């Protein structure tokens, strides 16, 4: 196939230039890869923090077990609630002893247990915000045997703000990185086309069809995007390993993101190349 052969011939004829433009594409996609890694981990961190948003319903010591059971069932059936767990006074004490050794010393012997029994309500992911939390809290408060309801109001508010900052930063940085990457890739491929302007001129001169002139560049662009994408993947993975080993624990991005990134790189490469060549086809 002529177009593929010609695209490969371009790499062969000007390896430095072709290598340079492939390297530029790889670096541009590497930036995107790092961004993807960072924003994925930010997202993970935020949602693990969100998982800790829960509503704790403290019950009076004189509440009857049948009342508690009913409340547990009813609260668990609220649309905002994922599940409700009963924590007895005994369990609360065991937990406190485990988490806070001083506490254990203080209340070492049997005797009084100052900790209340409670219902811990785990929330639906979509309900981990202030409004929903307050609704759940109000519903729990309605039971006469409920002593108090706690949900870390400040925590919920902070998390909400944090999430908004995260989303805004991700969008702004992502947009900027994508623009930079697009410019770099576009420039690299324009250079590649420019380097072959003499051949393009001759093709036009002797009557090559536009599509015929077009195709090798389309393939060259796609190839640059594909190889650059794979190189960027390797670089990003190496960075991930280094960060994991020397700095802190991070998660590797899902393979669907990787595949999507490489596919987008390939597509973008051929589109950018096609735009660059179109400019040349317009003249002469």
């Amino acid at each position, binding site marked *: 196939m*002529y177009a593929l052969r010609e695209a490969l011939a371009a790499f062969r004829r000007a390896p430095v230039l072709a290598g340079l433009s492939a390297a530029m594409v790889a670096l541009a996609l590497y930036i995107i890869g790092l961004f993807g890694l960072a924003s994925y981990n930010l997202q993970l961190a935020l949602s693990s923090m969100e998982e800790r948003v829960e509503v704790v319903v403290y019950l009076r010591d004189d509440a009857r077990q049948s009342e508690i059971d009913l409340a547990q069932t009813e609260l668990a059936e609220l649309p905002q609630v994922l599940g409700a767990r009963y924590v007895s006074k005994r369990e609360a004490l065991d937990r406190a002893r485990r988490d806070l050794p001083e506490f254990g010393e203080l209340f070492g012997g049997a005797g009084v247990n100052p900790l209340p029994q409670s219902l811990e309500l785990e929330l639906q992911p979509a309900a981990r915000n202030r409004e929903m939390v307050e609704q759940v809290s109000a519903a729990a408060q309605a039971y006469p045997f409920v002593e108090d309801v706690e949900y870390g109001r400040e925590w919920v508010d902070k998390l909400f703000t944090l999430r908004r900052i995260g989303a805004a930063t991700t969008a702004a940085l992502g947009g900027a990185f994508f623009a930079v990457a697009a410019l770099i890739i576009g420039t690299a491929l324009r250079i590649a086309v420019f380097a072959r302007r*003499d*051949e393009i*001129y*001759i*093709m*036009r*001169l*002797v*009557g*090559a*069809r*536009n599509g*015929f*002139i077009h195709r090798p560049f389309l393939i060259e662009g796609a190839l640059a995007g594909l190889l650059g994408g794979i190189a960027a993947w390797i670089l990003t993975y190496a960075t991930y390993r280094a960060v994991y080993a020397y700095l802190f624990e991070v998660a590797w991005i899902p393979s669907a993101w990787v595949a999507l990134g490489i596919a987008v790189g390939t597509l973008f490469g051929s589109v950018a190349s096609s735009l660059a060549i179109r400019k040349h*086809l*317009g003249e*002469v």
Partner: protein
Amino acid sequence: MPAPPRLALLIKLTQVAKEYPKRGFALRDVSFNIAKGEMAFVTGHSGSGKSTTLRLAHMADRPTSGEVRVTGYSSATLSSREVWKVRRRVGMVFQDFRLLPGRSAVENVGFALEVTGVNRKEIGPRAQRLLSQVGLSTKAGALVNELSGGEQQRVAIARALVNDPFVLLADEPTGNLDERATRGIMELFVELNAKGMAVFMATHDLELVRRYPKARLLELDHGRLVYDSATA
């Protein structure tokens, strides 16, 4: 689809004007025809519009007003996507050859064959045949930058012949050549013309033109056609 070519008239300019922004008119009200098999020269001093005329005839440029018809295709209706159709009927060579450096003579011709869709197996033999047609069969493998000017122009002519054109446009093809090489190239043009190919050549070398008294002669002056031997 453009109208089928009327091959009796290969090139027909009708009241053609060409204006370049800021530079003014390069051609004004130019009308003439080049017929099948004709040998024609266009002369004039520098800047008179010779190159512009040839560029229009190759559809490398469009007239500002008037019409250029080339082998049946009209400048008024031919889209830029279809210019290749004209290029396959009209070959062109230049003063500066415009070969691809770093490639051999046969590769330069082969490139033109390849990009016009010639079957891969035929490219080699056909390039060789074209080169021997222009008297260059022994230099086929030489890099074009190592060839003499006359030899490079022969490679360019061989390349212009890949589509077996009806007409060969030549813009000062001997401008960079010495007397001996000029003679060789002109002999080649006469030979090609004798086989039925029209040749339309721009030159300011009046002495050269005088050696071909039977050829058609057009003269431009400041963008106007001031002499046409066919109507004089």
